[in-house]
């Protein structure tokens, strides 16, 4: 696979010639009655009865006859030669069936390496060298998971330790080469740029004010409560591979398996059952999956592989790891004008990020944020280090979190430097609502927005003026209180085929709807819920479009034998893509239904109008056929010149991405004795366009906020200088509980997407993207008067304590 090198970002999206102006409201309006439960209804989730009764079916619940278990021997070194793997003692244990090594995979057809989603390669099992701590070294197959674990302890691997390179800045010196297998003898993987350097230099030359900061966004881990796992079941007689796996993108994974293994794609069935949280961690293919599938091929038996938590925390599902140097410019009046960013992306041993192929740094160039900058110069370098591959999203649309954190921190620093109120400063600098659709200086065409409305609302909800007054009073008494704002612009719904693909497969998504004769329906989609509530929201979309009660629509995803091809669920793309496809497929069905209704009512199609769940004759609503009646007719009494049946499929290629936004305000109190941070209040005003199910949207936002709080205050994957992961359990990788998570206060504005079929934008990740800078800004706001300009996340009490003591505050 070729290295991605020296690339600059190109966008094909254009400002529409006749842009649609959209209004901002803040009330959800349901057009359908409760019986139909279309868009806007707070419908209880259809999937919940199984989960609340313990009847969900996750991959570890799958038990097949004759199933064997796989466990993995992992490297204790971050970099070492493998001198010998002695599995003889392990093989002597009763119940041990096989030990699979890199040599075995090589012999099986060069399966010891696999391609990554970014067209790089990654070792599956190593032959001569381990490249990161906890790397898979070999796999044990046994009749029982306890025996497999025993056998792993008996495998003796003889290593010759090598010096690892852990810091990407050191790695760039190329004194230690991470990937000797590569043609290019360098740790520098790629260089990528966006914006216009010359124009940016010119803007900075004119600038009256420039602020500069180094911002590190550390490696974190999605840590879904369910780890990764697979049950692979190779049926020799049928030459058929059935795979249950924790996959956010089952179709894409099927294609990857077909290409890697050489098995015909129609002989591979991937079933993604209920998933216990994904957050991007279940997008890539990990070595364990490949070995598990190979083990089934070799043994002819079903094989189950389920990661332990510590394996999960040490070997896969890592995100972020961006080392940023940013400069922001403003003119004399405090108008923001330019942004210059240099970033090192620590890839680990492979560029295995889960980004669209042409975007090695994801959608990072959205980093001009909510501000109409004149120019920006964004440079990113990808670097190999002796760490596991990273780059999954962590509930984020491809590096948008990094972008938003950087710009919202920089804007806050500028506001403070200019002695301007951060809210007033933002309001004075936002892209105005009449500027949409807005083309940013890095090439994005923002579809719609009303940033001032969202911030205004948040300020009212939290009584911003009152808080500033309180802060001044407290400061006079030596008490530390801070107020932080984040006014973020998200970019989700990848994406338009012209720019977006994964391994060449365009990032459309799909829906197929079949209406049964009795007026019930099944809908199958190319995405895959991991808790987002697709079984409910897709049913509501179809209910909205066809008038079928949402309860009458069965939604299925995740089985590649039955669902239409799709790219899966991540990056808040399900509603923008598959949701749109569901609406478009429903509209195709409605078009056919109209013909049937015209036939039944013996009128012309032009005489009919649609009313919630029926076609009625214009001016004579008594003459009508409901969708159920039409469905029955589609199988029993359809027009002679029309095919029977009532179904449709749609592969939706979005014309543009969608750009959700919001303004968050956080209030913190800081204990000057201990550095403890108390998030007293947090108001989140989100605008995700039109809302399908307010209950689910609230849940997505609250959950996303806690996953934004987590990296802001708690979570970090820490390596020592030898590449040893020091945060290998949940005891050291700190996930917030209900005690650390504040009571979130939500508000909303609604600015529909002008190009999406029903004006929705996607919501699951906005809060994860928007929350960290609001929290960081609040903490720095509490400390600014002492001389503190910036603190890197996670902002721990230890860091705050250090800052306090350095600036002379002592309890």
């Amino acid at each position, binding site marked *: 696979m070729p290295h991605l090198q020296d690339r600059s970002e190109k966008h094909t999206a254009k400002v529409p010639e006749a842009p649609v102006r959209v209004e901002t409201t803040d009330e959800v309006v349901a057009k359908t009655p409760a019986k139909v439960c279309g868009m806007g209804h707070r419908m*209880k*989730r259809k*999937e*919940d*009865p*199984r*989960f*609340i*009764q*313990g*009847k*969900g*079916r*996750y991959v*570890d*619940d799958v*038990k097949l006859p004759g199933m064997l278990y796989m466990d993995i021997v992992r490297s204790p070194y971050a970099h070492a030669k493998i001198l010998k793997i002695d599995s003889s003692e392990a093989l002597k244990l009763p119940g041990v069936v096989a030990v699979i090594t890199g040599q075995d995979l090589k012999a099986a057809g060069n399966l010891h390496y696999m391609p990554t989603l970014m067209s790089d390669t990654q070792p599956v099992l190593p032959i001569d060298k381990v490249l990161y701590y906890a790397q898979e070294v070999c796999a044990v197959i046994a009749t029982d*998971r*306890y025996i497999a674990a025993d056998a792993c302890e008996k495998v003796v691997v003889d290593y010759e330790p090598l010096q690892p390179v852990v810091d990407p800045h050191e790695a760039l010196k190329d004194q230690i080469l991470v990937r000797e297998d590569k043609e290019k003898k360098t740790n520098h993987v790629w260089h990528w740029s966006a914006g216009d350097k010359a124009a940016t230099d010119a803007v900075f030359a004119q600038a009256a004010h420039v602020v500069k900061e180094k911002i590190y966004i550390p490696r974190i881990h999605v*840590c*879904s*409560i*369910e*780890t990764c796992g697979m049950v692979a079941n190779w049926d020799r007689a049928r030459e058929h591979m059935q795979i249950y796996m924790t996959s956010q993108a089952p179709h894409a994974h099927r294609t990857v398996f077909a290409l890697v293994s050489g098995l015909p794609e129609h002989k591979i069935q991937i079933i993604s059952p*209920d*998933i*216990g*949280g*994904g*957050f991007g961690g279940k997008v890539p293919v990990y070595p364990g999956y490949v070995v598990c599938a190979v083990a089934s091929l070799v043994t002819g038996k079903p094989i189950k592989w389920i990661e*332990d*938590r*510590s394996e999960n925390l040490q070997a896969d599902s890592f995100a972020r790891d961006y080392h940023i140097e940013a400069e922001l410019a403003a003119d004399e009046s405090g108008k923001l004008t330019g942004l210059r960013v240099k970033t090192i992306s620590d890839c680990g041993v492979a560029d295995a990020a889960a980004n669209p192929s042409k975007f090695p740094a994801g959608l990072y160039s959205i980093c001009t944020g909510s501000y109409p900058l004149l120019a920006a110069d964004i440079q990113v370098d990808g670097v190999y280090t002796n760490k596991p591959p990273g780059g999954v999203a962590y509930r984020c649309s491809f590096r948008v979190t990094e972008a938003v954190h950087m710009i919202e921190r920089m804007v806050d620093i500028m506001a403070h430097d200019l002695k301007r109120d951060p809210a007033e400063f933002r309001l004075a600098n936002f892209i105005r609502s009449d500027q949409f659709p807005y083309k940013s200086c890095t090439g994005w065409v923002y579809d719609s927005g009303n940033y001032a409305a969202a911030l205004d609302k948040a300020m009212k909800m939290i009584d911003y003026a009152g808080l500033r007054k309180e802060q001044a009073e407290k400061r006079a008494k030596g008490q530390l209180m801070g107020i932080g704002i984040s006014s973020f612009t998200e970019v989700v719904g990848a994406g338009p085929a012209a720019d977006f693909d994964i391994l060449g497969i365009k990032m459309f998504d799909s829906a197929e709807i079949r209406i049964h004769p009795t007026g019930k329906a099944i809908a199958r989609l190319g995405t895959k819920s*991991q*808790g*987002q*509530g697709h079984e409910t929201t897709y049913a509501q979309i179809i209910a909205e479009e066809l008038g079928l009660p949402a309860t009458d629509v069965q939604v299925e995803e995740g089985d590649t034998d039955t669902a239409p091809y799709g790219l899966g669920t991540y990056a808040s793309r399900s509603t923008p893509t598959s949701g749109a496809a569901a609406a478009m497929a429903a509209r195709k069905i409605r078009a056919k239904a109209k013909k049937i209704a015209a036939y039944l009512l013996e009128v012309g199609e032009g005489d009919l109008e649609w009313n919630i769940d029926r076609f009625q004759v214009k001016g004579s609503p008594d003459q009508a056929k409901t969708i159920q009646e039409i469905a029955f007719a589609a199988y029993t009494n359809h027009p002679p010149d029309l095919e029977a049946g009532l179904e449709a499929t749609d592969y939706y290629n979005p014309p543009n991405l969608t750009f959700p936004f919001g303004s968050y305000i956080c209030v913190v109190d800081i204990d000057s004795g201990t550095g403890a941070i108390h998030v007293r209040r947090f108001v989140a005003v989100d605008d995700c366009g039109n809302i399908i199910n307010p*209950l*689910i949207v*609230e*849940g*997505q*936002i*609250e*959950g*996303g*906020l*806690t*996953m934004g709080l987590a990296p802001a205050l708690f979570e970090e994957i820490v390596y020592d200088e030898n590449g040893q992961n020091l945060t290998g*359990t*949940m*005891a050291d990788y700190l*996930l917030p*509980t*209900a*005690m650390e*998570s504040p*009571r*979130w206060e939500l508000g909303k504005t609604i600015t529909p997407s002008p190009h999406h079929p029903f004006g929705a934008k996607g919501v699951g990740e906005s809060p994860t993207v928007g929350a960290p800078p609001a929290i960081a800004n609040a903490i720095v706001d509490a400390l600014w008067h002492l001389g503190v300009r910036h603190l890197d996340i996670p902002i721990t009490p230890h860091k705050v304590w250090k800052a306090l003591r350095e600036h002379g505050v002592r309890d």
Partner: protein
Amino acid sequence: MSQHEISLTVNGAAVTKTVEARTLLVHFIRENLELTGTHIGCDTTSCGACTVVLDGKPVKSCTVFAVQANGATLQTIEGVAPDGKLHPVQEGFWEKHGLQCGYCTPGMIMTAKSLLEKNKKPTEQEIREGISGNICRCTGYNKIVEAIQYAAAKLEEAR
């Protein structure tokens, strides 16, 4: 090494099985009893996904050996609504959208149910403390708190 025959009551039914001493209770429940509603989320007694009620107490079944449950009464999520009539806590989680991926949910429900048996009218703070041994990665907890408040009110009504 040592094998033990254990007898216990599981969701109201008597069960006798032979287990290896080292078999963790959670594996016994999932593999031997095939009650897969109880989940595994960590190795360190941190996450609470495996919470069951053992002799009336909510405990993390990954940190108890199955052999220790000999003679005990065990309730898992499958035993909360045996006849399909949802318990008020289950209702609350459904009504208030107290779950998303559903993976932590059985453990969360077992904890919440035990909490309300001890404290009939918990404050929000008491609820948050009470579920602080269970980690949810999806919901942000607001709606779990609301779900438990809903159940408390529902149980109060029933009394």
